[in-house]
């Protein structure tokens, strides 16, 4: 792409097309649909963190006059037996099914045991107490260290660690062990004049979306079943649900409601397969809505982690060796984001000798789910903390140290490819020149800085642009809009078609209307779905040229198209897009453009954050005084929503660094299962979040876009952690920096 390109619409902060509905309360979210004859489903959850389920007696519940259906894991087995047992990835489908409804073991406090559908929500909830479950209690395993011990109680008797050359002889809680390396780590440390090594811990934290999981479903024995739900990817809800229930994809239609936050946590199914079973058994549409405590205890937190980071450098600041070790809690079933943690840990730095080892470990907590740049915040927290300490030991400015070693085009990554053009140096320079970094640190405050790296992904996106006879159009896309992406789609189509964005209406189509589109995640939507929007719009332009050429009796190559007008280069004729659409009936029928792509070439996004904090020495409470987030967007299609991603990511990271953590009692029961005690940041906790959007174009996107959604949550952990450490003159090795922990650090030294 040309860097000098001038845009007509891209880069403006337009009003989002779905805005009116969202400020008036008309927008329909997961819990907002009611169907005729609809009944309500509720889930009975395990009060124990680890137990064998000896029996589930549902007879009393079934006899209740308001109860119309009861479901247990046995219902899945009956449905699945034909298809799933023999299919590829059967084990993963079984994990998914066993997370939706427990099989013979309750694996965490909150694990779904059975479900009831009743005439009212209250009746369903009340009837849960009629289900009799006999448990045999087992000792809970609540953190990675305990779980990895040789004599630890084993959650899954059939789990043998993958990743060793020889299969271990006995089952353990370690699902996967992995190691990535390049160069010679020992030689690298031998070259170093200064070596820093520390151990870190990060807590179990939740995505904290404000909208609880919700769905309304209708099972249809003969025709097509329907799911309406809040999800980041309705095509993936269809795939997962169909697998769990042994259904054909074509027999299941999934409609994505508006989504009230997800951050990765709404990429898995919890309720949908259960609700369909209840609907099948009752013959009625069923609605299920989680309560907030259920969201905390039974849906995806991100992994707590234990990490070690070791880094060595020469006196001039050249980093010679980086070594990492990490153990991530997967929750009750394998699949923590340990692997991206291993891959991202030291990627911001060019270093020839790197080794990182990782473990994916099951514990008696709810199954972890993706959370914004999954796995990277924990790993890069550890790495950035030792980079800051290295700068201090070398007497170097932490930005200068990073600039000296910054990853750039051609830098070899530990996971395989060399980086293409990236913007870390530009972000570091912007940070160094920022008003915040140039300002003096107030007496008693601490300042932190850290960088962050995330890959971003592309993937499959399907888009159709349907033109109307009056020249307006509909952009039919399959990516749920979680933060304003409709506005970006509208602008990209407008740019290609040369008409005002307001003439184009973006809609999120259901799974019947479009071919498969991957979930909104991996910072992929503006990049990949945007690319499909551009291609589909270009197809419209090509067709418009053909239609105009036919009218003028010239070839399509002789037709120019700009600013919504086709011009005959062999004459003076002009036709607007609206005129071509109006006469489409006479020139061969209506016009639509289609692009079903698998987008490649997602550009990594780097970020650098700066934070000043004040710490109350008597209480240990930390106040964020000033915060600046700098990030490479490639090209900001809608600058205000790009800033919003930077700010939102920063504040989620601040919450993770300062307050958010799951607190369990000695039996593995979560004690702070509400927003009062699991404290996400409030408006009163924060200053304005200053942003600097850096634009180093991604050569693989027509407009230069890089995803921006995730990277912003990575730097805050070390930025805030380091700032707190400076303010109290201590080393912060454990997050969150909540008042009791900070006070203990102050008092105990």
């Amino acid at each position, binding site marked *: 792409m040309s860097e000098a390109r001038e845009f007509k619409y891209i880069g403006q902060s337009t009003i989002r097309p779905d805005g009116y509905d969202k400020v008036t309360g008309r927008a329909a979210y997961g819990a907002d649909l009611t169907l005729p004859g609809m009944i309500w489903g509720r889930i009975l959850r395990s009060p124990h963190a680890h137990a064998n389920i000896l029996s589930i007696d549902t007879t009393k519940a079934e006899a209740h006059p308001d109860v119309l259906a009861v479901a247990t894991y046995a219902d899945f087995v009956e449905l699945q037996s034909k298809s799933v047992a023999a299919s590829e990835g059967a084990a993963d489908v079984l994990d998914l099914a066993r997370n939706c409804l427990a099989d013979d073991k309750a694996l965490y406090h909150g694990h779904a045991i059975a479900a009831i559908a009743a005439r009212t929500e209250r009746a369903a909830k009340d009837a849960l107490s009629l289900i009799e479950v006999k448990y045999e209690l087992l000792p809970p395993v609540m953190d990675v260290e305990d779980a990895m011990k040789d004599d630890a109680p084993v959650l899954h008797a059939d789990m043998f660690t993958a990743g060793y050359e020889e299969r271990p002889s006995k089952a353990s809680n370690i699902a996967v062990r992995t190691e990535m390396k390049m160069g010679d780590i020992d030689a690298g440390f031998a070259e170093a004049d200064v070596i820093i090594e520390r151990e870190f811990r990060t807590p179990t934290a939740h995505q904290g979306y404000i909208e609880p999981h919700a769905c309304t479903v209708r099972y249809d024995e003969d025709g097509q079943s329907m799911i309406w739900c809040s999800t980041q990817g309705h095509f993936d809800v269809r795939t997962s649900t169909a697998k769990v229930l042994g259904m054909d994809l074509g027999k299941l239609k999934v409609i994505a409601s508006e989504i009230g936050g997800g951050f990765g946590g709404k990429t898995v199914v919890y309720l949908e397969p259960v609700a369909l079973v209840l609907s099948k058994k009752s013959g009625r549409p069923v609605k299920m809505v989680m309560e907030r405590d259920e969201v905390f205890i039974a849906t995806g937190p991100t992994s707590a982690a234990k990490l070690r980071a070791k880094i060595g450098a020469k006196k001039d600041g050249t980093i010679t060796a980086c070594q990492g070790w990490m153990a991530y809690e997967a929750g009750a079933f394998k699949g923590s984001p340990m692997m991206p943690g291993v891959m991202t840990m030291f990627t911001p730095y060019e270093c020839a000798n790197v080794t990182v080892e990782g473990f994916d470990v099951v514990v008696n907590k709810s199954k972890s789910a993706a959370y914004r740049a999954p796995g990277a915040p924990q790993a890069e927290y550890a790495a950035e903390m030792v980079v800051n300490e290295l700068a201090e030991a070398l007497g170097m400015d932490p930005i200068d140290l990073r600039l000296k070693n910054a990853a750039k085009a051609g830098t070899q990554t530990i996971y395989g490819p060399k980086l293409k053009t990236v913007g870390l140096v530009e972000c570091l320079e912007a940070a160094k020149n920022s008003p915040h970094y140039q300002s003096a640190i107030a007496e008693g405050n601490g300042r932190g800085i850290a960088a962050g790296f995330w890959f971003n992904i592309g993937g499959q996106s399907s888009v159709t642009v349907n033109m109307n006879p009056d020249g307006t159009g509909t952009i039919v896309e399959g990516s749920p809009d979680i933060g304003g992406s409709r506005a970006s789609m509208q602008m990209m189509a407008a740019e290609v078609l040369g008409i005002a964005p307001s003439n184009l209406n973006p809609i999120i189509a259901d799974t019947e209307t479009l071919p498969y589109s991957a979930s909104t995640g991996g910072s992929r939507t503006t990049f990949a779905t945007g690319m499909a929007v551009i291609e589909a719009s270009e197809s419209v332009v090509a067709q418009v040229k053909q239609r105009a050429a036919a009218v003028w009796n010239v070839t399509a190559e002789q037709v120019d198209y700009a600013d919504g007008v086709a011009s005959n280069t062999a004459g003076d004729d002009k036709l607007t897009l609206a005129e071509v659409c109006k006469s489409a009936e006479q020139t061969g029928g209506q016009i639509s453009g289609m692009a079903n792509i698998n987008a490649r070439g997602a550009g990594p996004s780097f970020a650098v954050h700066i934070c000043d904090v004040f710490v109350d020495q008597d209480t240990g409470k930390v106040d964020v005084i000033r915060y600046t987030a700098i990030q490479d967007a490639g090209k900001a299609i809608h600058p205000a929503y790009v800033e919003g991603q930077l700010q939102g990511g920063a504040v989620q990271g601040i919450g993770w660094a300062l307050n958010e953590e799951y607190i369990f009692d000695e039996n593995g029961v979560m004690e702070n299962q509400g927003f009062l005690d699991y404290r996400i940041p409030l408006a*009163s906790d924060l200053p304005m979040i200053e942003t600097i959007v850096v634009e180093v174009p991604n050569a693989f996107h027509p407009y230069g876009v890089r995803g921006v959604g995730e990277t912003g949550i990575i730097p805050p952990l070390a930025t805030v952690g380091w700032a707190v450490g400076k303010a109290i003159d201590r080393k912060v090795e454990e997050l969150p920096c909540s008042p009791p922990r900070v006070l203990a650090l102050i008092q105990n030294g």
Partner: protein
Amino acid sequence: MAKTHVSTSINGEATEFLCEPGDTLLDVLRNDLQMTGTKEGCGSGDCGACSVTFNGALVCSCLVLGVEAQGAEIGTIEGIGDNDKLHVIQEKFLEHAALQCGICTPGLIVSTKALLEKNPDPTETEARYYLAGNLCRCTGYDKIIRAVMDSAEVMRGGA
């Protein structure tokens, strides 16, 4: 259990409904009256997504019983702005990109209106503390606070 008949006023319209003693005002609004603009995020008064006004006072409708609405004046998001014209606060939320997913937005708009009726010229700190009961997980609050401050200025008749 016998239901209770309740006569109330919602957004200035006389409204009647039947509810069980344990139903919250939020349950009634969403499930019985199909007014789903008011959102449920926690059911425990911690998130503010269900903010409404009750006889002029800002409350979480999940903490009010349906039967308490008898004879009261209830104000919800559906009553803010006219059919063909958004309220200034709604316009400013859009202009400042003060929403991402939008689930907290109705509650925040109800709360902001209550704030500005009480205090037309809040400082940034006053706005932040008044809105501390409305959780937003997407935005980091920056653009929300800017929208609130800009709304206040316009509503005061400033530039």
